């Protein structure tokens, strides 16, 4: 009992981290796109659990809401609607493998560089929740909001502008005339 109480967060971290990595591997290795989509969903939810363990409540809930509840449902919708077997046979990505190889090598390099610098264990098992604004204790959501809308207002607005551009672009592409 003592062991579980002391090491509980650490054990849960390894459980969910393993789940996230395992399901991420399944996303790219499974043949059926439907299975891949569900593996991706499990991966997203495991990452949300990691956020919870790090006391980032707001981030965790938004992760579930946006990725779990929104984006993955759209993925599944498209996968169910489109007959993916036919697309596989057409091999539309056949010509792109040199570029893909280059990108993959670059990505591996980047990841190895990060891995070499980061200590891969829960360095701090119970980090303090971000709850204070100017020394005054408020909730986690309020604290994140203050950070976003005061200190990081410009990056926040630029990010939302990008999303707007992407949305207008999608509408333009989808117009029939």
């Amino acid at each position, binding site marked *: 009992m003592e062991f579980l109480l002391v090491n509980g967060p650490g054990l849960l971290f390894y459980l969910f981290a393993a789940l996230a990595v395992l399901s991420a591997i399944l996303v790219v290795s499974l043949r059926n796109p439907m299975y891949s989509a*569900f593996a991706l969903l499990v991966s997203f939810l495991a990452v949300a659990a990691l956020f919870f363990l790090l006391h980032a409540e*707001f981030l965790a*809930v*938004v992760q*579930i809401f946006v990725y779990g509840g929104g984006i993955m449902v*759209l993925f*599944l919708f498209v996968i169910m609607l489109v007959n993916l077997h036919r697309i596989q046979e057409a091999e539309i990505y056949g010509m792109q493998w040199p570029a893909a190889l280059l990108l993959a090598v670059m990505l591996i390099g980047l990841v190895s560089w990060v891995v070499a610098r980061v200590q891969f264990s829960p360095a701090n098992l119970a980090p303090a929740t971000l709850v204070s604004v100017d020394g005054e204790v408020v909730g986690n959501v309020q604290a994140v909001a203050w950070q976003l809308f005061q200190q990081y207002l410009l990056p926040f607005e630029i990010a939302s502008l990008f999303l707007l551009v992407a949305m207008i672009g999608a509408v333009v592409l989808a117009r029939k005339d």
Partner: protein
Amino acid sequence: MVEFFGETLFTYAVVPLVKIIAAIIVVLTIIAYTTFAERKILGFLQVRTGPNRVGPWGLFQPIADVAKLLGKEDVIPNRAVKWAYVLAPCLVVGPALLILSVIPYGPPSAEGTIPSWFITDVNAGLLLVVAIASIGVYGLILGGWASNNKFSMLGGLRAAAQMISYEVPQGFSLIVPVLMAGTLSLVGIVEAQLTQGRWFIFGFFPFGLLAFFIYFVAGVAESNRNPFDLPEAESELVAGFHTEYSGMRFALFFLGEYANMIVISAVAVTMFLGGWLRPFPSVGWLSFLNLAFLPAGLAGFLWFLIKLLSFLFVYIWFRGTFPRYRFDQLMDLGWKWLIPTALLSVVATALWKVLI
């Protein structure tokens, strides 16, 4: 004495467990008798009697229904994807019951008295409710896809499109009471209605009312009830996503639908109708409505229950009144009417709050 994060075993584990079990039992009972009430009220609306054979006035009908469903053969189609087929009903019921953990059924307790009337109060409570509710749609999609049946598949697709579309106005309309209260904690929102002396449905008139209307319409669509029950439209899709399901697995889908109705009603009561507060909490001469002769908190719970049951009645009333929407009408209503109106009320409430 083992310490659990600064609490004793009793306050850390036993009290919440008892509350969780009590909440689930109460909700399951309400669900059982909602199905009965639905048949009786629909019977009344259609000038017929409704079930009246099992027990006095048919009161034991739900028990007979459950016994029948438990006794039925559990069919899994030959070419179904078995794990997904089995998992799907659980994915509908699980999230709906999970949300019950953050709903405030009654007031928090004073220090040293009986435990408060909610299981837990989370700082991001409302976000948690919306997030967990958005997971529920996977049950419908998965069930529709795993059944390996074209009607189920179409039902699952419709469910996906409908839930995604109506989550947006639902989320926007919930921002309005959050703006009025200035917190996301559900207990905090009800307490804000107490200190401001009005239910948020009457706040910033007419924007509170508008947001409430949008929330409830979107909620009816989210729980796949008439007039938005297109994922299971029996005149077009046999039974939609649960065509292949039988016995207790079908009953689980049914249970999930009713649990979702209760959750959506409970959130509407908490956000717009003052949760456990009596009507007009600021009017002095109505204070006899506090029912002070009842033990602490029970009066609040009774008010909550009355509001909740009225919502369930409205759900059934809708079913007896409105014809089903066509799918393009459903999308039109969601995207062209509800979302712009919800955005308008959010902006108007924010401006009002800043300027006045």
